[in-house]
């Protein structure tokens, strides 16, 4: 961890559940993110995978300060975000931006592309007002859109074009890190690759860091340097993309990897799938010990006793499994 741009230490995001009509009683807590420690280096692409409801999106929103942090710290570029005042916060927040999942919902339908891209420049006084139009045109070219479309409205673009606009908007404030929350899952498969390549190329050419959230390992492998696997609010495996996907260690990662379809039908037919029984447990009432044990084919009694910590397993590799050496 030479030069991290973003450091998360034991980040927790809990949502209290209240019940009762007049007097609200606390009846439980959804532990959407429950103790995530992670560092993202400058220029690194970190893939974050896990099934629906495992807390990936909540983690992204917690980092972006869109939902309040319950515990732990988020340090961006050496600055603890929680220690900031509201004004400093807005200034610091410029360092990170988010690309949302649904390009049909993430752009204000009443604003032209120009208004959408010029607004952050003007609000944060990124450049003199006279230079804003030229700057907007450059942003559009950066993401592969012709500047002559600048006076059009979002509903006049395709999904892929809209996602390009959303990426341009995120780039407007010259962030150091971009958090992309399933940026391609709402797009046609033929468009997905274009957007992925655009993101990868932007990171390389501008030295950006990227947290790329997806539930599809093949997409993640294509773009990421490192991969973190999340299960029920916790990271269960972390390592380089090749290590995690080609040599998965945690039983959950193995199940995920075994679900990647292969294009070759002969290989596909012979493929051994590791199908997990049951559904992910409720984050309101997680199982004791390792949260994965009720679905794990290798589970033993000792798995129910304590929450397994992330243990280093070789260089750049961490796995949270009690039976790491045995299976």
């Amino acid at each position, binding site marked *: 961890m030479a030069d991290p741009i973003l450091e998360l230490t034991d980040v927790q995001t809990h949502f209290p559940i209240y019940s009762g009509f007049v007097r609200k009683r606390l009846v439980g807590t959804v532990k959407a993110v429950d103790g995530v420690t992670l560092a993202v280096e400058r220029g690194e692409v970190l893939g974050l995978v896990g099934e629906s409801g495992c807390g990936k999106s909540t983690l992204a*929103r917690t980092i*972006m*300060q*869109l939902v309040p942090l319950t515990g732990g710290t988020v340090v961006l570029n050496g600055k603890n975000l929680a220690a900031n005042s509201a004004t400093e*916060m*807005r*200034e610091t*927040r*410029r360092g*990170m*931006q*988010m690309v*949302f*999942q*649904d390009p*049909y*919902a*993430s*752009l*204000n*339908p*009443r*604003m*032209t592309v*120009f*208004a959408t891209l*010029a*607004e*952050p420049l*003007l*609000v*944060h006084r990124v450049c003199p*007002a006279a230079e*804003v*139009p*030229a700057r*907007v*045109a450059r942003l559009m*070219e950066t993401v592969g859109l012709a*500047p*002559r*479309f*600048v*006076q*059009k*409205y979002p*509903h*006049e673009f395709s999904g892929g074009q809209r996602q390009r606009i*959303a990426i341009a*908007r995120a780039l*407007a*404030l010259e962030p150091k890190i971009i958090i992309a929350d399933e940026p391609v899952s709402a797009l046609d498969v033929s468009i997905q690759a274009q957007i992925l390549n655009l993101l990868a190329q932007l990171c390389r050419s501008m030295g950006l860091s990227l947290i790329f959230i997806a539930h599809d390992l093949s997409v993640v492998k294509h773009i990421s340097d490192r991969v973190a696997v999340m299960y029920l609010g916790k990271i269960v495996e972390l390592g380089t993309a090749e290590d995690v996907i080609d040599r998965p260690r945690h039983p959950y990662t193995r199940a995920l990897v075994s679900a990647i379809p292969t294009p070759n039908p002969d290989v596909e037919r012979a493929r051994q799938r590791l199908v997990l029984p049951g559904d992910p447990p409720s984050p309101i009432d997680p199982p004791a010990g390792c949260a994965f044990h009720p679905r794990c084919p290798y589970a033993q009694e000792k798995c129910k006793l304590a929450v397994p910590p992330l243990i280093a397993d070789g260089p750049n590799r961490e796995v949270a499994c009690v039976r790491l050496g045995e299976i």
Partner: protein
Amino acid sequence: MPSLSPKVLPTADVTPAQLEHGHSPWHDAWARLRKNKLAVAGGIALLALTLLCICGPWFSQTYQDQNLDLGATPPGAAHWLGTDTLGRDLFARILYGGRISLMVGLVATFVALTIGVTYGAIAGFLGGKTDRVMMRIVDIMYALPFTIFVILLMVFMKEPSEKLDAWLRNTVHLEGMQGAGNMVLLFAAIGAVEWLTMSRIVRGQVLSVKKMEFIEAAHSLGYGRRRIIFRHIIPNILGPIIVYATLTVPAVMLLEAFLSFLGLGVQPPMSSWGALIKDGAEKMEEFWWLLVFPGSVFSLTLFSLNFLGDGLRDALDVRASKD
């Protein structure tokens, strides 16, 4: 802050001629509205009535010119719509009454709109305890019986309203504006009641829009609360607001008619459509025209507003817009 929509984009890459202009959602809604014949007819009828009420009295008798010898005459060449029992020209009185009714409708709706949108948007956006307290206040005001509220207001505000009248008469010398104090009271009373529903509608809309991703994007771009409410949320809920406003105007005019009917609204010799209908209803067995003409004009206005409102609702509906 400079405008977000410059007419041209002067860069080396794009000349103004190459620039492709898009159609805003408003533009599309306007195109849909124009196809709706009933709504267009309603809009034209409203415009015509408004123009007639504004300009008509310049060429006619005034509402108080009376000819007691004439008494009530049926419609004829001299008095197109006849005269009332005091020999006043009914057509002139309908035009003058229309000025009052339309003004009450528009001003009171505007008052309700301003208060309701601001209040509802703040409650919905802030949420939590603030929202709960603000909406309970609305609930309490809903529970107050309207007539009692208005009567109380009229009684307590009688003195200030007479002072305003005296000031208008003696200091500004606007003789024609007498009764203005009473009008302001009427606006205040109706506005104070109608904003409640508006604030509930706006709050609900804000709740649904504020969870959308483009609002989250605005937060993560570090925009301030005021900018998010007024530039990102409200423009996206204007559709329902406009529709509700067009449906509020007739409701307000009915309220004014009701208050005038009770003798709390416009005072004679001035009149409004509500007051004229009340007079006509009392004498309809002998002098049918006193009820039929004011009633038809009032109904025509209400119909037009409702058709226009329905048309706007269809035109502005997000689900109907092309994606």
